[in-house]
Protein backbone atom coordinates (compact mmCIF):
# COMPACT_ATOMS: atom_id res chain seq x y z
CA UNK A 1 0.00 0.00 0.00
CA UNK A 2 1.75 3.15 -1.18
CA UNK A 3 -1.14 5.42 -2.01
CA UNK A 4 -1.81 8.43 0.26
CA UNK A 5 -5.55 7.88 0.06
CA UNK A 6 -5.18 4.28 1.24
CA UNK A 7 -2.90 5.39 4.06
CA UNK A 8 -5.44 7.95 5.23
CA UNK A 9 -8.15 5.32 5.10
CA UNK A 10 -5.94 2.95 7.09
CA UNK A 11 -5.32 5.65 9.71
CA UNK A 12 -9.07 6.31 9.91
CA UNK A 13 -9.88 2.62 10.33
CA UNK A 14 -7.22 2.06 12.99
CA UNK A 15 -8.34 5.14 14.92
CA UNK A 16 -11.94 3.98 14.84
CA UNK A 17 -10.86 1.03 16.96
CA UNK A 18 -8.98 3.22 19.44
CA UNK A 19 -11.05 6.39 19.68
CA UNK A 20 -14.42 5.73 18.03
CA UNK A 21 -15.67 9.24 18.68
CA UNK A 22 -12.61 10.84 17.10
CA UNK A 23 -13.14 12.39 13.70
CA UNK A 24 -9.96 12.44 11.67
CA UNK A 25 -11.49 14.79 9.12
CA UNK A 26 -11.44 17.56 11.73
CA UNK A 27 -7.70 17.22 12.27
CA UNK A 28 -5.33 19.42 10.30
CA UNK A 29 -2.48 17.84 8.37
CA UNK A 30 0.14 19.40 10.63
CA UNK A 31 -1.61 18.96 13.94
CA UNK A 32 -0.23 16.54 16.51
CA UNK A 33 -2.74 13.69 16.43
CA UNK A 34 -2.06 12.84 20.06
CA UNK A 35 -3.12 16.33 21.14
CA UNK A 36 -5.96 16.69 18.67
CA UNK A 37 -7.54 13.33 19.48
CA UNK A 38 -6.37 13.03 23.10
CA UNK A 39 -4.44 9.81 22.56
CA UNK A 40 -2.46 8.51 25.54
CA UNK A 41 0.70 6.39 25.37
CA UNK A 42 -1.26 3.15 25.07
CA UNK A 43 -3.58 4.60 22.41
CA UNK A 44 -0.64 5.81 20.36
CA UNK A 45 1.17 2.48 20.60
CA UNK A 46 -2.02 0.73 19.46
CA UNK A 47 -2.22 3.24 16.61
CA UNK A 48 1.35 2.36 15.56
CA UNK A 49 0.56 -1.36 15.80
CA UNK A 50 -2.46 -0.94 13.53
CA UNK A 51 -0.56 1.21 11.00
CA UNK A 52 2.35 -1.21 10.97
CA UNK A 53 0.16 -4.27 10.51
CA UNK A 54 -2.01 -2.58 7.91
CA UNK A 55 0.85 -1.21 5.82
CA UNK A 56 3.52 -3.85 6.35
CA UNK A 57 5.99 -1.13 7.38
CA UNK A 58 7.85 -2.07 10.61
CA UNK A 59 8.00 1.50 12.15
CA UNK A 60 10.89 1.43 14.65
CA UNK A 61 10.27 3.25 17.92
CA UNK A 62 12.81 5.95 17.07
CA UNK A 63 10.61 6.93 14.10
CA UNK A 64 7.45 7.50 16.18
CA UNK A 65 7.82 11.32 16.11
CA UNK A 66 7.54 11.21 12.32
CA UNK A 67 4.04 9.77 12.71
CA UNK A 68 2.69 12.38 15.12
CA UNK A 69 0.92 14.25 12.29
CA UNK A 70 -1.25 13.10 9.41
CA UNK A 71 1.11 14.61 6.88
CA UNK A 72 4.06 12.93 8.56
CA UNK A 73 2.52 9.49 8.69
CA UNK A 74 1.28 9.62 5.10
CA UNK A 75 4.77 10.63 3.95
CA UNK A 76 6.37 7.95 6.10
CA UNK A 77 4.14 5.09 5.02
CA UNK A 78 4.06 5.96 1.31
CA UNK A 79 7.85 5.98 1.01
Amino acid at each position, binding site marked *: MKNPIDIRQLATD*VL*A*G*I*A*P*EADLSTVGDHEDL*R*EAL*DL*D*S*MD*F*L*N*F*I*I*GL*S*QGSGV*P*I*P*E*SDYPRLFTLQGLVAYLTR
Partner: protein
Amino acid sequence: MADFLMPALGADMETGTVVQWLVEPGARVKPGDVVAVVETHKGAIDVECFLDGVIGDLVPVGERLPVGAVLARVMETGGKPAVSVKASKSAVSAVAQPASPPLGREAAAPRTGQSTPVNPRRKVSPAARQRALQIGLDPDALSGTGVDGAVVLGDVERAGRRTRSVAAPAAAASAAHRGSFDPVQMRQAIASAMARSKREIPHYYLSSTVDFDAAQAWLQAWNRDRDPVHRLLPAVLLLKATALALREVPQFNGFCEGGVFRPGVGIHVGWATALRGGGLVAPAIHGADGRSPAELMEAMRDLVQRARAGGLRSSELTDPTVTVTSLGDRGAESVLGVIYPPQVAIIGFGRVVERPWVVDGQIVARRLVNLSLAADHRTSDGHLGGQLLAAIQQHLQSPETL
Protein backbone atom coordinates in the same frame (compact mmCIF):
# COMPACT_ATOMS: atom_id res chain seq x y z
CA MET B 1 -28.31 -23.05 49.42
CA ALA B 2 -26.40 -19.83 49.07
CA ASP B 3 -27.38 -16.38 47.87
CA PHE B 4 -25.67 -14.74 44.95
CA LEU B 5 -25.67 -11.05 45.82
CA MET B 6 -25.28 -7.78 43.98
CA PRO B 7 -21.56 -7.21 44.49
CA ALA B 8 -20.06 -3.93 45.71
CA LEU B 9 -17.77 -3.10 42.81
CA GLY B 10 -15.76 -0.59 44.78
CA ALA B 11 -16.46 1.86 47.56
CA ASP B 12 -18.36 4.13 45.22
CA MET B 13 -21.08 1.73 44.12
CA GLU B 14 -24.52 1.75 45.70
CA THR B 15 -26.75 0.18 43.10
CA GLY B 16 -26.51 -1.88 39.94
CA THR B 17 -28.83 -3.25 37.29
CA VAL B 18 -28.68 -6.79 35.93
CA VAL B 19 -28.98 -6.20 32.21
CA GLN B 20 -28.33 -9.76 31.11
CA TRP B 21 -28.08 -13.23 32.57
CA LEU B 22 -25.43 -15.36 30.89
CA VAL B 23 -26.72 -18.55 32.51
CA GLU B 24 -30.10 -20.23 32.42
CA PRO B 25 -31.91 -21.23 35.60
CA GLY B 26 -30.73 -24.75 36.44
CA ALA B 27 -27.25 -24.20 35.00
CA ARG B 28 -24.22 -25.51 36.84
CA VAL B 29 -21.91 -22.70 37.99
CA LYS B 30 -18.33 -22.94 39.22
CA PRO B 31 -16.42 -20.33 41.23
CA GLY B 32 -15.18 -17.62 38.87
CA ASP B 33 -17.83 -18.15 36.19
CA VAL B 34 -19.19 -14.97 34.66
CA VAL B 35 -22.94 -15.31 35.15
CA ALA B 36 -24.41 -11.86 34.61
CA VAL B 37 -23.79 -8.47 33.06
CA VAL B 38 -24.49 -5.72 35.57
CA GLU B 39 -24.69 -2.11 34.55
CA THR B 40 -23.05 0.28 36.99
CA HIS B 41 -21.71 3.82 36.89
CA LYS B 42 -18.51 2.23 35.54
CA GLY B 43 -20.34 0.78 32.58
CA ALA B 44 -21.44 -2.80 32.05
CA ILE B 45 -19.44 -5.23 34.19
CA ASP B 46 -19.17 -8.99 33.76
CA VAL B 47 -20.06 -10.28 37.19
CA GLU B 48 -18.51 -13.51 38.41
CA CYS B 49 -20.15 -15.87 40.84
CA PHE B 50 -17.88 -17.51 43.41
CA LEU B 51 -20.34 -20.20 44.43
CA ASP B 52 -20.37 -23.81 43.29
CA GLY B 53 -23.63 -25.48 42.36
CA VAL B 54 -26.83 -25.05 40.40
CA ILE B 55 -28.14 -21.54 39.93
CA GLY B 56 -31.79 -20.58 40.04
CA ASP B 57 -34.24 -17.87 41.12
CA LEU B 58 -32.67 -15.29 38.83
CA VAL B 59 -34.03 -11.78 39.39
CA PRO B 60 -35.57 -10.22 36.31
CA VAL B 61 -33.30 -8.01 34.26
CA GLY B 62 -33.70 -4.26 34.17
CA GLU B 63 -34.37 -3.41 37.82
CA ARG B 64 -31.92 -1.25 39.67
CA LEU B 65 -30.98 -3.02 42.90
CA PRO B 66 -28.88 -2.05 45.90
CA VAL B 67 -25.55 -3.66 46.69
CA GLY B 68 -26.22 -6.84 48.68
CA ALA B 69 -29.59 -7.59 47.07
CA VAL B 70 -30.15 -11.25 46.26
CA LEU B 71 -29.68 -11.77 42.50
CA ALA B 72 -30.03 -15.54 42.43
CA ARG B 73 -29.75 -18.64 44.59
CA VAL B 74 -27.21 -21.38 44.18
CA MET B 75 -27.85 -24.94 45.37
CA GLU B 76 -25.11 -27.43 45.93
CA THR B 77 -24.74 -29.70 42.96
CA GLY B 78 -27.25 -32.53 43.13
CA GLY B 79 -29.99 -30.43 44.65
CA LYS B 80 -32.52 -28.25 42.87
CA PRO B 81 -32.88 -24.51 43.24
CA ALA B 82 -35.85 -23.68 45.43
CA VAL B 83 -38.82 -22.01 43.81
CA SER B 84 -39.14 -19.31 46.46
CA VAL B 85 -38.84 -16.48 44.00
CA LYS B 86 -41.14 -14.39 46.21
CA ALA B 87 -38.66 -14.04 49.05
CA SER B 88 -35.95 -12.56 46.92
CA LYS B 89 -38.38 -10.65 44.76
CA SER B 90 -40.08 -8.86 47.60
CA ALA B 91 -36.76 -8.07 49.21
CA VAL B 92 -35.52 -6.40 46.11
CA SER B 93 -38.65 -4.84 44.72
CA ALA B 94 -39.03 -2.80 47.89
CA VAL B 95 -35.93 -0.90 46.91
CA ALA B 96 -36.13 -1.25 43.16
CA GLN B 97 -36.44 2.00 41.29
CA PRO B 98 -37.37 2.51 37.68
CA ALA B 99 -34.11 2.41 35.82
CA SER B 100 -34.66 5.50 33.79
CA PRO B 101 -32.02 6.01 31.14
CA PRO B 102 -30.00 9.03 32.27
CA LEU B 103 -29.57 11.86 29.83
CA GLY B 104 -26.63 11.64 27.57
CA ARG B 105 -26.34 7.90 27.66
CA GLU B 106 -27.52 7.44 24.11
CA ALA B 107 -25.15 10.16 23.04
CA ALA B 108 -22.18 8.26 24.39
CA ALA B 109 -20.74 6.27 21.53
CA PRO B 110 -20.77 2.55 22.26
CA ARG B 111 -17.22 1.34 21.88
CA THR B 112 -18.07 -2.27 21.22
CA GLY B 113 -17.89 -3.48 17.69
CA GLN B 114 -14.54 -1.86 17.16
CA SER B 115 -11.89 -4.28 16.13
CA THR B 116 -8.66 -3.84 18.02
CA PRO B 117 -5.53 -3.23 16.04
CA VAL B 118 -3.84 -5.97 18.01
CA ASN B 119 -6.22 -8.72 17.09
CA PRO B 120 -8.24 -7.46 14.19
CA ARG B 121 -9.69 -10.83 13.26
CA ARG B 122 -11.57 -12.48 16.08
CA LYS B 123 -12.66 -16.03 16.42
CA VAL B 124 -16.40 -16.43 16.07
CA SER B 125 -18.36 -19.47 17.19
CA PRO B 126 -20.58 -21.00 14.48
CA ALA B 127 -23.75 -20.32 16.47
CA ALA B 128 -22.71 -16.71 16.99
CA ARG B 129 -21.94 -16.25 13.31
CA GLN B 130 -25.28 -17.67 12.26
CA ARG B 131 -27.21 -15.54 14.73
CA ALA B 132 -25.27 -12.40 13.80
CA LEU B 133 -26.05 -12.86 10.12
CA GLN B 134 -29.70 -13.48 11.00
CA ILE B 135 -30.02 -10.14 12.76
CA GLY B 136 -27.84 -8.25 10.32
CA LEU B 137 -24.62 -7.77 12.31
CA ASP B 138 -21.03 -8.30 11.20
CA PRO B 139 -19.82 -11.09 13.51
CA ASP B 140 -16.16 -10.26 12.89
CA ALA B 141 -16.66 -6.71 14.11
CA LEU B 142 -18.07 -7.68 17.51
CA SER B 143 -16.01 -7.85 20.68
CA GLY B 144 -15.90 -11.31 22.15
CA THR B 145 -16.05 -12.59 25.71
CA GLY B 146 -15.34 -16.26 24.98
CA VAL B 147 -12.03 -18.09 25.25
CA ASP B 148 -9.23 -16.04 23.65
CA GLY B 149 -11.70 -13.26 22.97
CA ALA B 150 -13.85 -15.42 20.74
CA VAL B 151 -17.24 -14.00 19.84
CA VAL B 152 -19.89 -16.25 21.35
CA LEU B 153 -23.67 -16.27 21.08
CA GLY B 154 -24.11 -14.00 24.13
CA ASP B 155 -21.97 -11.31 22.52
CA VAL B 156 -24.15 -11.31 19.43
CA GLU B 157 -27.33 -11.14 21.50
CA ARG B 158 -25.92 -8.24 23.48
CA ALA B 159 -24.86 -6.38 20.37
CA GLY B 160 -28.23 -7.11 18.78
CA ARG B 161 -30.10 -5.70 21.74
CA ARG B 162 -27.96 -2.62 21.75
CA THR B 163 -28.63 -2.01 18.10
CA ARG B 164 -32.34 -2.45 18.60
CA SER B 165 -32.40 -0.26 21.68
CA VAL B 166 -30.95 2.64 19.74
CA ALA B 167 -33.90 2.34 17.42
CA ALA B 168 -36.31 1.91 20.34
CA PRO B 169 -35.26 4.17 23.22
CA ALA B 170 -37.91 2.62 25.47
CA ALA B 171 -35.84 -0.55 25.57
CA ALA B 172 -32.69 1.34 26.45
CA ALA B 173 -33.16 0.97 30.19
CA SER B 174 -32.60 -2.74 30.02
CA ALA B 175 -29.95 -2.80 27.33
CA ALA B 176 -26.36 -3.54 28.12
CA HIS B 177 -24.44 -0.57 26.87
CA ARG B 178 -21.11 -2.18 26.95
CA GLY B 179 -18.39 0.37 27.06
CA SER B 180 -20.63 3.33 27.52
CA PHE B 181 -21.27 4.81 30.90
CA ASP B 182 -23.28 7.70 32.15
CA PRO B 183 -20.78 10.52 32.76
CA VAL B 184 -22.99 12.26 35.30
CA GLN B 185 -23.43 9.10 37.34
CA MET B 186 -19.74 8.30 37.11
CA ARG B 187 -18.81 11.80 38.26
CA GLN B 188 -21.15 11.48 41.24
CA ALA B 189 -19.65 8.12 42.17
CA ILE B 190 -16.09 9.45 41.96
CA ALA B 191 -17.12 12.50 43.96
CA SER B 192 -18.65 10.39 46.68
CA ALA B 193 -15.67 8.01 46.97
CA MET B 194 -13.11 10.81 46.90
CA ALA B 195 -15.07 12.97 49.36
CA ARG B 196 -15.19 10.00 51.70
CA SER B 197 -11.46 9.52 51.23
CA LYS B 198 -10.64 13.12 52.06
CA ARG B 199 -13.08 13.13 54.97
CA GLU B 200 -11.93 9.88 56.59
CA ILE B 201 -8.34 9.30 55.56
CA PRO B 202 -5.58 11.46 57.05
CA HIS B 203 -3.39 11.56 53.95
CA TYR B 204 0.30 12.30 53.97
CA TYR B 205 2.36 12.84 50.85
CA LEU B 206 5.94 12.14 49.80
CA SER B 207 7.69 12.51 46.49
CA SER B 208 11.06 11.83 44.90
CA THR B 209 12.67 12.45 41.55
CA VAL B 210 13.86 9.22 40.00
CA ASP B 211 16.58 8.84 37.36
CA PHE B 212 14.83 6.99 34.54
CA ASP B 213 17.82 6.71 32.16
CA ALA B 214 18.68 3.09 32.88
CA ALA B 215 15.06 2.04 32.49
CA GLN B 216 14.66 4.05 29.29
CA ALA B 217 17.83 2.56 27.78
CA TRP B 218 16.67 -0.94 28.66
CA LEU B 219 13.28 -0.24 27.07
CA GLN B 220 14.82 1.13 23.90
CA ALA B 221 17.00 -1.95 23.56
CA TRP B 222 14.04 -4.24 24.18
CA ASN B 223 11.80 -2.42 21.71
CA ARG B 224 14.40 -1.96 18.99
CA ASP B 225 14.17 -5.43 17.47
CA ARG B 226 10.56 -6.16 18.18
CA ASP B 227 7.35 -5.71 16.26
CA PRO B 228 5.20 -2.88 17.64
CA VAL B 229 2.82 -5.44 19.11
CA HIS B 230 5.58 -6.80 21.37
CA ARG B 231 6.96 -3.46 22.49
CA LEU B 232 6.72 -2.22 26.05
CA LEU B 233 5.66 1.13 27.48
CA PRO B 234 7.57 2.81 30.33
CA ALA B 235 4.45 2.30 32.47
CA VAL B 236 5.18 -1.43 32.61
CA LEU B 237 8.51 -0.88 34.37
CA LEU B 238 6.96 1.64 36.75
CA LEU B 239 4.26 -0.89 37.60
CA LYS B 240 6.65 -3.80 38.11
CA ALA B 241 9.10 -1.77 40.20
CA THR B 242 6.21 -0.66 42.41
CA ALA B 243 4.87 -4.18 42.81
CA LEU B 244 8.29 -5.52 43.80
CA ALA B 245 8.79 -2.67 46.27
CA LEU B 246 5.42 -3.46 47.85
CA ARG B 247 6.67 -6.98 48.46
CA GLU B 248 9.51 -5.51 50.53
CA VAL B 249 7.41 -2.84 52.26
CA PRO B 250 4.03 -4.60 52.46
CA GLN B 251 2.49 -2.09 54.87
CA PHE B 252 1.17 -0.16 51.88
CA ASN B 253 -0.50 -3.13 50.21
CA GLY B 254 -3.85 -3.66 51.88
CA PHE B 255 -6.76 -2.00 53.59
CA CYS B 256 -7.66 0.14 56.56
CA GLU B 257 -10.65 -1.33 58.34
CA GLY B 258 -11.88 0.27 61.54
CA GLY B 259 -8.57 2.08 61.83
CA VAL B 260 -6.62 -1.18 61.65
CA PHE B 261 -4.41 -2.31 58.77
CA ARG B 262 -5.36 -5.56 57.06
CA PRO B 263 -2.67 -6.75 54.64
CA GLY B 264 -3.73 -7.59 51.11
CA VAL B 265 -3.45 -11.21 50.01
CA GLY B 266 -1.38 -10.88 46.85
CA ILE B 267 -0.28 -7.66 45.20
CA HIS B 268 -3.18 -6.69 42.97
CA VAL B 269 -2.41 -3.28 41.57
CA GLY B 270 -5.38 -1.11 40.69
CA TRP B 271 -4.25 0.52 37.46
CA ALA B 272 -5.82 3.98 37.16
CA THR B 273 -7.27 4.26 33.67
CA ALA B 274 -8.84 7.41 32.26
CA LEU B 275 -11.95 6.78 30.20
CA ARG B 276 -12.51 8.74 27.04
CA GLY B 277 -15.19 11.32 27.61
CA GLY B 278 -14.24 11.71 31.29
CA GLY B 279 -14.22 9.35 34.20
CA LEU B 280 -11.77 7.01 35.78
CA VAL B 281 -11.58 3.39 36.80
CA ALA B 282 -8.74 1.50 38.49
CA PRO B 283 -9.18 -2.23 37.85
CA ALA B 284 -6.78 -4.82 39.23
CA ILE B 285 -3.73 -6.27 37.53
CA HIS B 286 -3.59 -9.42 39.62
CA GLY B 287 -0.31 -10.66 41.09
CA ALA B 288 1.65 -7.88 39.40
CA ASP B 289 4.85 -8.67 41.35
CA GLY B 290 5.05 -12.17 39.85
CA ARG B 291 4.63 -11.26 36.18
CA SER B 292 7.26 -10.45 33.57
CA PRO B 293 7.23 -7.04 31.84
CA ALA B 294 5.90 -8.65 28.67
CA GLU B 295 3.07 -10.30 30.62
CA LEU B 296 2.29 -7.04 32.40
CA MET B 297 2.16 -5.20 29.08
CA GLU B 298 -0.32 -7.74 27.76
CA ALA B 299 -2.40 -7.51 30.93
CA MET B 300 -2.34 -3.73 30.86
CA ARG B 301 -3.33 -3.54 27.20
CA ASP B 302 -6.19 -5.96 27.77
CA LEU B 303 -7.35 -4.14 30.89
CA VAL B 304 -7.30 -0.68 29.35
CA GLN B 305 -9.12 -2.02 26.31
CA ARG B 306 -11.83 -3.59 28.44
CA ALA B 307 -12.08 -0.63 30.79
CA ARG B 308 -12.93 1.48 27.75
CA ALA B 309 -14.79 -0.97 25.52
CA GLY B 310 -16.68 -2.83 28.24
CA GLY B 311 -16.10 -6.26 29.70
CA LEU B 312 -14.32 -5.59 32.99
CA ARG B 313 -14.89 -8.45 35.43
CA SER B 314 -16.27 -7.88 38.89
CA SER B 315 -13.17 -9.33 40.56
CA GLU B 316 -11.05 -6.73 38.80
CA LEU B 317 -13.02 -4.00 40.54
CA THR B 318 -13.13 -5.62 43.97
CA ASP B 319 -9.59 -7.01 44.27
CA PRO B 320 -7.15 -4.07 44.07
CA THR B 321 -4.95 -3.87 47.16
CA VAL B 322 -3.27 -0.59 46.15
CA THR B 323 -3.55 1.92 43.30
CA VAL B 324 -0.92 3.12 40.84
CA THR B 325 -1.49 6.10 38.58
CA SER B 326 0.90 6.87 35.75
CA LEU B 327 0.21 10.00 33.73
CA GLY B 328 1.88 8.85 30.52
CA ASP B 329 3.91 10.79 27.99
CA ARG B 330 1.51 13.70 27.64
CA GLY B 331 0.59 14.05 31.29
CA ALA B 332 1.66 16.48 34.00
CA GLU B 333 5.09 16.24 35.61
CA SER B 334 3.80 15.03 38.94
CA VAL B 335 0.67 13.81 40.65
CA LEU B 336 -0.33 13.50 44.30
CA GLY B 337 -3.15 10.99 44.41
CA VAL B 338 -6.28 10.61 46.51
CA ILE B 339 -6.48 7.21 48.21
CA TYR B 340 -9.30 4.93 47.07
CA PRO B 341 -10.86 3.64 50.30
CA PRO B 342 -10.41 1.24 51.98
CA GLN B 343 -6.93 1.05 50.40
CA VAL B 344 -4.12 2.78 52.26
CA ALA B 345 -1.89 4.07 49.48
CA ILE B 346 -1.75 5.41 45.95
CA ILE B 347 1.54 5.66 44.09
CA GLY B 348 1.85 8.23 41.31
CA PHE B 349 4.23 8.73 38.38
CA GLY B 350 4.41 11.89 36.30
CA ARG B 351 5.55 12.20 32.70
CA VAL B 352 9.15 11.22 31.95
CA VAL B 353 11.04 14.48 31.30
CA GLU B 354 14.58 15.34 30.26
CA ARG B 355 16.27 17.71 32.69
CA PRO B 356 19.73 18.73 33.91
CA TRP B 357 20.89 16.35 36.65
CA VAL B 358 24.09 16.00 38.62
CA VAL B 359 26.00 12.74 38.25
CA ASP B 360 29.46 12.42 39.83
CA GLY B 361 29.74 16.18 40.18
CA GLN B 362 28.88 16.81 36.53
CA ILE B 363 25.71 18.30 35.14
CA VAL B 364 24.27 15.95 32.54
CA ALA B 365 20.99 15.64 30.68
CA ARG B 366 18.93 12.86 32.20
CA ARG B 367 15.47 11.43 31.79
CA LEU B 368 13.67 11.77 35.10
CA VAL B 369 10.32 10.80 36.50
CA ASN B 370 8.57 12.19 39.55
CA LEU B 371 7.43 9.46 41.93
CA SER B 372 4.90 10.17 44.67
CA LEU B 373 3.10 8.43 47.47
CA ALA B 374 -0.13 9.41 49.17
CA ALA B 375 -0.66 7.17 52.17
CA ASP B 376 -2.97 6.74 55.16
CA HIS B 377 -1.48 8.12 58.38
CA ARG B 378 -3.66 5.75 60.43
CA THR B 379 -1.62 2.81 59.16
CA SER B 380 1.86 4.18 58.40
CA ASP B 381 4.24 7.12 58.77
CA GLY B 382 6.41 9.07 56.38
CA HIS B 383 9.51 7.19 57.47
CA LEU B 384 8.08 3.93 56.16
CA GLY B 385 6.72 5.72 53.10
CA GLY B 386 10.22 6.90 52.33
CA GLN B 387 11.40 3.30 52.41
CA LEU B 388 8.76 2.36 49.85
CA LEU B 389 9.81 5.16 47.51
CA ALA B 390 13.48 4.24 47.94
CA ALA B 391 12.70 0.63 47.06
CA ILE B 392 10.79 1.64 43.92
CA GLN B 393 13.64 3.93 42.92
CA GLN B 394 16.18 1.19 43.44
CA HIS B 395 14.29 -1.31 41.32
CA LEU B 396 14.09 1.19 38.48
CA GLN B 397 17.90 1.41 38.47
CA SER B 398 18.13 -2.31 37.59
CA PRO B 399 15.52 -2.69 34.85
CA GLU B 400 16.98 -6.02 33.73
CA THR B 401 15.83 -7.53 37.03
CA LEU B 402 12.24 -6.35 36.65
